[in-house]
């Protein structure tokens, strides 16, 4: 079986999208890895919906300050210019379009960019947290996830079967097999993991993929 990218490598590829000066929210789970992978020479401002903008790299667990955490409960480090605010202002920033980019995990993304990332069968009490506001309000929405479930089922689907976070909100999908743009024409396969062909990626994807003319291997 061919190797798929590990989570750290997906995070490295996602972080290449971070442009100088951006305000960026990293969603719960895997996206948090991106905090330590900002491309050399760029400055970005990480937003935590719990009320912080401009935190630094992830901190050491052993010296955890429980009053300086990101929204995934991970300790983070202070940076010059960092600021704190309450939850209402934090979501004004999000809904009002003052945050440039959010990286969210997902259970499913549809061919029209619908996102399902909070509810799954058997867990009716798990909540959406800030995901719905982030997906509805941030200028750009990136999804970072594994291409398939543990059982091999497709996560990039024609239509989401899990409850939605927001409709038609995802701009780009980064997985352990591919980079895909969500466009009005459909899903465009832009990059594939080294050693993988477009046909192989399509066979693991339920939604139809349009192969980009300039399809290339994922580079870091």
């Amino acid at each position, binding site marked *: 079986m061919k190797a798929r990218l590990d989570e750290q490598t997906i995070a490295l590829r996602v972080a290449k999208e971070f442009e100088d000066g951006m305000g960026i929210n990293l969603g719960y789970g895997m996206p948090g890895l991106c905090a330590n992978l900002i491309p050399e020479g760029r400055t970005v401002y990480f937003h935590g919906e719990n*009320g*912080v903008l401009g935190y630094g790299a992830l901190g050491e667990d052993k010296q955890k300050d429980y009053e300086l955490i990101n929204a995934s409960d991970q300790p983070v480090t202070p940076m010059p210019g960092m600021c704190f605010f*309450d939850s209402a202002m934090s979501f004004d920033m999000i809904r009002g379009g003052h945050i440039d980019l959010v990286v969210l995990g997902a259970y499913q993304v549809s061919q029209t960019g619908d996102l399902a990332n909070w509810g799954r069968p058997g*867990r009716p*009490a798990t909540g959406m947290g800030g995901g719905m*506001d982030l997906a509805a309000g941030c200028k750009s929405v990136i999804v970072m996830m594994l291409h398939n479930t543990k059982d091999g089922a497709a996560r990039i689907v024609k239509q989401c079967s899990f409850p939605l976070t927001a409709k038609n909100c995802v701009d780009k999908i980064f997985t352990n097999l591919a980079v895909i743009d969500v466009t009005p024409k459909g899903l465009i396969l832009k990059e594939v993991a080294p050693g993988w062909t477009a046909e192989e990626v399509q066979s693991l994807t339920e939604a139809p993929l349009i192969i980009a003319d300039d399809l290339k291997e994922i580079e870091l």
Partner: protein
Amino acid sequence: MAMNKVFSSCDDAVADIFDGAVIMIGGFGSYGGLPISLIVALAKQGARNLTIIANQGGVGLELSKKIKPGGYQDIGALYAKGQVKKFIGSVPALGGMPPTSPIETLHREGKVEIEMVPQGTLAERIRAGAGGLGGFYTPTGVGTPVEIGKEKKVINGKEYLLELPLTADFALIKAHKADTLGNLVYRGTARCFNPVMAMAAKTTIVEVDELVQPGELDPEVIVTPHPFVSRIVEVPR
């Protein structure tokens, strides 16, 4: 404005919370920002049929050990004796945790009702309640299960949902410092839901690390002005 707001214990500060009360509990979810001593006092006090409004439903002492060595008490302490009738919040249970938190267990057994609210909508519903507003239109939740039963309106070509205000009988919140008047400052990400909840309840009870005299807090940095605060308890952490 009541003059003596300083209480000597959390037990005294929560003594008059009544059965059926609606209670906001500040914090984001985990240890930082959570009014833990007040929650423990409320669990001891035993008021029942409570409606709890909070961002997270609490993971309970056992699962909290995954977040902080040794664990800590959170809203989970209130479910043990069946004190909670309904929970309103954005993360009743965490998807990344095993399905064994007190609220998730009781919800499965049909013993706790849950109203799921997106986090930004929750903050804004509380702010609307605090500010005497009748509600607001938000794009959050359009096209999702959250829109069910809500008025939809197109404003400037975009769809919005009407969301209604939230208020409470009591708010239990955590701040870093208070002066004896009730002016509050917070520390780091422990601010979160505390300032908005402080404004939205008939009686706001705050647990602080340190109590100081009026004049000792810089007026330029006070986040919660004293009319919003009813009772103060100093609990050094």
